[in-house]
C-alpha cells in the first residue's frame, strides 16, 4: 500500500440497530497523520461510526479499509487490525484487576509476545509521557477520572498503534480534569498520530483538527476545516448545532 492512500477508507456504510438506521450511507477518508474531529448531536451516530472502524460494531452494507485491509473480509484477521488501532473510551474501561503498569503491559505481553522487561520499560516511558508514572503500582479504582483516562490513553499507545480512536474521552470527567486529558491528546496530535476523535470540546477541535466532520441522523452532513466549519458552516443543521453549543 502506498502512503498516498488514506489510512482509513469508509465507503457507503450502513448500520442498522433493528429498524433504526444508525449509519446512513456514510463515507469518509482519513489520511495518515490526519486528525479528524467528529461532532454532532446525541444519537447522531458518532460513536457507532467510530466503533465500526475497529469492528466493535459490524456494518450491514459498505466497506471499511484500514491500513490497506478490508476489515470485513474473512481473509483478514480482525484482531491483528485492532492491535494497530488504539481506542479510548468515554468510561476509561481500565482493567480493574490489574495495576496501572499491568494495564499497559498485558496486551504487549500476550499479543506482541515481547519480554516482560521490554514491556515494562515501554510502559514506564508512556506513563511518564502522560505524567502519571508515580501511580504505576496503583489500581484503577484508586485513581481520579482524569488519571484513569490518561492511563487508558497510555494503555492504547503501549501497542504502538498506527491510528488512535477517541470516543468522547472527556465527557465523563469533572471539569477540572478535562484539561489534563486534552493536553495529552494535543501532544499526541503534535507528534503526528493519526487520530479520529468524537468530542464536544470545541476548543480542542479548533486547535487540533485538520478536519471537522459534522454528523446528524446517521449521516455526515458536512466536513471542512475548523475555520470553515466554525466560521461559515454551509448547512442549516450545522448552523443550528453550533448555535446550540457555542
Amino acid at each position, binding site marked *: 500500500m502506498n502512503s498516498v492512500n488514506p489510512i482509513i477508507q469508509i465507503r457507503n456504510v450502513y448500520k442498522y440497530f433493528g429498524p433504526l438506521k444508525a449509519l446512513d450511507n456514510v463515507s469518509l477518508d482519513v489520511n495518515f497523520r490526519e486528525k479528524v474531529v467528529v461532532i454532532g448531536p446525541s444519537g447522531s451516530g458518532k460513536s457507532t461510526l467510530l466503533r465500526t472502524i475497529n469492528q466493535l460494531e459490524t456494518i450491514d452494507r459498505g466497506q471499511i479499509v484500514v491500513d490497506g485491509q478490508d476489515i470485513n473480509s474473512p481473509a483478514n484477521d480482525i484482531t491483528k487490525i485492532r492491535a494497530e488501532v*488504539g481506542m479510548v473510551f468515554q468510561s476509561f474501561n481500565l482493567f480493574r484487576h490489574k495495576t496501572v503498569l499491568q494495564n499497559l503491559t498485558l496486551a504487549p505481553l500476550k499479543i506482541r509476545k515481547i519480554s516482560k522487561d521490554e514491556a515494562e520499560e515501554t510502559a514506564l516511558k508512556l506513563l511518564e509521557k502522560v505524567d502519571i508514572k508515580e501511580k504505576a503500582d496503583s489500581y484503577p479504582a484508586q485513581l481520579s477520572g482524569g488519571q484513569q483516562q490518561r492511563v487508558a490513553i497510555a494503555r492504547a499507545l503501549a501497542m504502538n498503534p498506527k491510528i488512535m480512536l477517541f470516543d468522547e474521552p472527556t465527557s465523563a470527567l469533572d471539569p477540572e480534569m478535562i484539561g489534563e486529558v486534552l493536553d495529552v491528546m494535543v501532544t499526541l496530535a503534535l507528534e503526528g498520530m493519526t487520530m479520529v476523535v468524537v468530542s464536544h470540546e470545541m476548543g480542542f477541535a479548533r486547535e487540533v483538527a485538520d478536519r471537522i466532520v459534522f454528523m446528524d441522523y446517521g449521516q455526515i452532513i458536512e466536513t471542512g476545516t475548523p475555520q470553515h466549519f466554525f466560521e461559515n458552516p454551509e448547512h442549516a443543521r450545522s448552523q443550528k448545532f453550533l448555535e446550540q453549543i457555542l
Partner: protein
Amino acid sequence: MSEKPVTIEISDGAAIPRRKDKGLVSAWRLAFFSALVIFTCLLIFKREPYLRIIKFLPDGILVTFEVTIASISLASIIGLFTGLGRISRNRYINLIASTYVEVVRGIPLLVQLFYLYYALGRFVRIPDIAAAVIAMSVCYGAYMGEVFRAGIESIDRGQTEAALSLGFNRTQTMFYVILPQAWRTILPPVGNEFIALLKDTSLVSILAVSDLLRRGREFASESFFYFETYTMIAIIYLLITLLLSKFVGIMEERLGRYEQR
C-alpha cells in the same frame, strides 16, 4: 443487554460469615460453638452409646469428603464450560448448554441420582462412588453453570470492548480480563453451591455408597439407637458445613482484596 441479572441467586447453603459480623455473638459462632459443646458433652457424659457411634462413623465421613471434593472439582469444571456455553455466540453450543441446564434444573436431584446411577451402572461397571460423583457433578455442574454465567455477565461490557480493541481475541479476553474479575462475583454463590453440595451428598446414601449418613443408618438399624445416632450425624454435618462456610468466607476476603476503594 438490559435483561442482565443484577443479583445472583443464592442457594440454600449455610450463611457465609462476613467481615461485618464482628461482634462476639454472631449466628455462626453461636451455632458452631453450641454444636461443639453439645458434641463434646455427649461424648464425655454419655459415653454409651455416643462413643460407640462416633467410632463407627469415620469411614463414612471420609467417603462424604471424597464424594464432596471430587464432585466439587468436577462440577466446577462442568460449570465453567456450561457457563461459557450459555453465553457463547455459537447457536449450537449455546443450545446444548441451555438445554442441559433446563433438563437438570427440572428434575429433582434424588431422581437424577437414581437415574444416572442405575443408567451408568447398566452400561459400564464403575465403582459406586465414581457413579455417585458423576451424578452429583452433572447435577451441580448445571447450577454452577448458571453461577458462572451470571458472574461473567456481571462484568461491564466496557471491559470486553477495551480488551478487544487492544487486539485480544474472545478467548483471551475471557481468560485474561473477564474471568479474573468475575471471580469476585462468582465466589460467594459458588461457596454456597459447595456447601449445598456437601449437604446433598447425603442423598448418595440411598445408593450403595457408605457415606456418613449411610454409616449412621447401618449403625442405628443394628443397635436401635436411632435418636442418638441421628443426633450425632446432624451435629457432624453441622460442624463440617459451618467450617466450610467459614473457609469460603475467608477465601472471599482474600480474593476481594485487590480493589480498595
